[in-house]
């Protein structure tokens, strides 16, 4: 199996954590992997991207354009930066959260509409898997972590779910985050579309 994932979002959303979890799953299951996060600087709210390359022994960190089997984007405008990288026929997963830059909030700069993104995804020949931030569930009265929910959706609805096992993803989530284990499981499983198994 060779499978490449390109991530795009902004700092503070936890998008790099999705990549880290998947890289750890690969490590756990002896799948060769290279995970290359680019977080830029310490500040929150800046563009972050990452690239996960699964299944190649000797591999460079950068996915070529038109080379990603899947894009995971967690900010509407930043998702556009991933468009050149999606493979025709690939899965373009968009969690359409909006982090408006100040100039946009002040009405001084434009911000791309959802329809514009859809059009670009279509032009790239990819399949859009849209996750509306409004559908994020609550656990014990608080919204769950969007990244784990998104990870669940990915495992449930994209080809990645057939390449690695959901149990392994959940195992890594459980070992990686010692706190709020139930809430994390709930977030992940809600995304996966599985009912929560109360233990």
């Amino acid at each position, binding site marked *: 199996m060779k499978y490449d994932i390109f991530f795009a979002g902004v700092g503070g959303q936890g998008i790099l954590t999705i990549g880290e979890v998947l*890289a750890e799953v690969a490590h756990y299951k002896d799948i060769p992997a290279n995970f290359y996060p680019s977080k830029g*600087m310490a*500040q929150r709210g800046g563009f972050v991207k990452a690239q996960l390359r699964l299944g*190649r022994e000797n*591999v*460079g960190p950068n996915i*070529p354009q038109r080379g990603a089997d899947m894009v995971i984007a967690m900010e509407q405008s930043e998702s556009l930066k991933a468009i050149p990288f999606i493979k025709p026929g690939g899965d373009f997963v968009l969690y359409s959260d909006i982090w408006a830059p100040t100039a946009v*909030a*002040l009405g001084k700069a434009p911000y791309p509409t959802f329809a514009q993104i859809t059009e670009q995804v279509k032009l790239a020949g990819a399949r859009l898997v849209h996750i509306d931030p409004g559908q994020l569930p609550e656990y014990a009265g608080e919204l769950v972590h969007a990244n784990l929910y998104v990870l669940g959706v990915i495992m449930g609805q994209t080809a990645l779910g057939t390449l690695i096992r959901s149990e392994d993803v959940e195992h890594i989530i459980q070992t990686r985050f010692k706190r709020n284990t139930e809430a994390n499981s709930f977030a992940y499983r809600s995304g996966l579309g599985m009912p929560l198994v109360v233990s």
Partner: protein
Amino acid sequence: MKKLITGNEAIAYGALRAGVKAVTGYPGTPSTGCLSSLLAMDLVDTHVEWSVNEKVALEVATGVAWSGHRALCTMKMSGLNVAYDTLISVAYSGCDGGLVVYVADDPGASAGMCEQDSRSFAVMADMPMLEPATVAETYELTKFAFELSERIKGPVFLRLVTGIADSYAEVEIEEPVLVSQAAPLLIKDIQRYTKAGAVIATNQHRDLIQRLEQAGQITDEAKINKLSLSRKPGGLGILASGIAAAYLEEGFEAAAPFGFNREDVSTLEIKVVHPFPAAEARKMLAHCQTILILEELEPLIERGMYVEAQRMGYRGKITGKLDGVFSRIGEYGVPQVVQGIESVLRLGIPENLLSGNTQALKLAAARPITVCAGCPHRGTYIAIDKAIKKLRLKKNEVMVTGDIGCTILGMNPPFDLIWTEISMGASVSLAQGYVHAGVKTPVIATIGDSTFFHAGIAGLVNAIQHQIDLTLVIMDNRWTAMTGMQVNPGTPCNNGASTYQEIDIARIIPALGIEHFWTVDPFDVEETAGVIHQAMTLPGVKVVLARQECAIQAQRQGKQAGKVHVVEENCNLCKLCLMVTGCSAFSLGANAIEIDPELCYGCGVCIETCHHDALVAEEV
């Protein structure tokens, strides 16, 4: 044990496996993770420190190596420039214990700064330089670098690029080797360890050249570079340096459907980027009809290849940057492999095989980075802005020089204050030049605390000596923040566990004889603006120390400056608060501005920007 680690960590583990006695460095993206991972290990027998700057770091490491022990020194490419004065001397002298200098370059400049190709520094210092193509190779080459250094008795460079330094991959890690407790060698030999006089210096130069030659022999024997000649002579030969080699296989796969046959191609994967692998290069030239060279940034290997080709009377073609096929800008990847193959073999590979729709990028909203919610620098910038206005001047009339680190974010909206960024500590010296040039309006220099200690202090001393009229604003957030929160000499060591001595900038400035010196709280914007305004009207060197801890680091320690909330009835959504502060804790609600309580640090800087009393501080 197999571990998932970054290239930076691979160097750290490789050094531990080599029994490293001391590791020194200065933070700099993308090299930081190496030393910070070692610090986090709380090692007992290995000394690990963030030094005040790279030059000092290298000198500390050199002392260890000259005493016969192993030392590692880490830095980014800009830091190497700072350390270089020392490095040339150390290269001349050589060393007894293994001395490895790790430098991280950033093709594509993803961390800002520059696309400096530090391989040229290896050429200038006549020092061997090793460069792995993957994270796993990084670990192996680190161990080898220490051996090589001790065999030639000279320092060795290890170079990574961002894509490897920050990448995670699985590496087989061995147990660390026990650190030698041998008594330090105390070698008194002025012929080696001083530079006084032409005889000493030229003898050392001769030895240096010999060491480099010897390094070439050792790396040849150890077969560090990977040469693979095709069964049939003739055909294409590809030289790929460092990370470029990691893309070969994938490029070959992409070209295969167009008739490319991997079996017909010879490859040389170069991991010893200096000295030039002449023997292997000659084998390639003797075997291949055409040569393709894949290397990021400067055509260093390519030039070496032209030289060997000339010496051999090679009649084939060499393709790379010098014939205009590749660019000296940016990272390499699979597309360069394919493009190179196509330009040489003309297989009819379509140009857009690996190029996607970049039109989409034009639709993306601009996202200039700004300071974090609650960042103390926000208050300082707003205060500088106010001080300029109080003097009835405009922003484009007042020169404000900037420096490296989070403080540079004053160049972006909503502040738009900073005009320049050069290098660590340069703001205060550059400002003096503007004054000499005859700028009539007050000149301001801004600098962070770590940057001040690193190199800014010398510029300040110069300003005082030459009695320049300027205002220096030291924005002391107590941490080296932008690289991910490292300690610097001014970081408070209040956690009891730290083993260093804090140095207080507030005590340094008066000791330099500066009369006009104020310490202010940047969260008190009025006071800060008043002080900066006053400073701008006075003659001579004035220093304003704006001191408040980095909000991110403070919040990590559970601190909170206060609590600010919105009185919805009072807010008329004029957005003035957002316009002035650009704070990311704000968002637009339906009827009023909203503050995200998770992001807001309660710094209070926004409160007075509102003319309708809609932002109020809560008692905490």
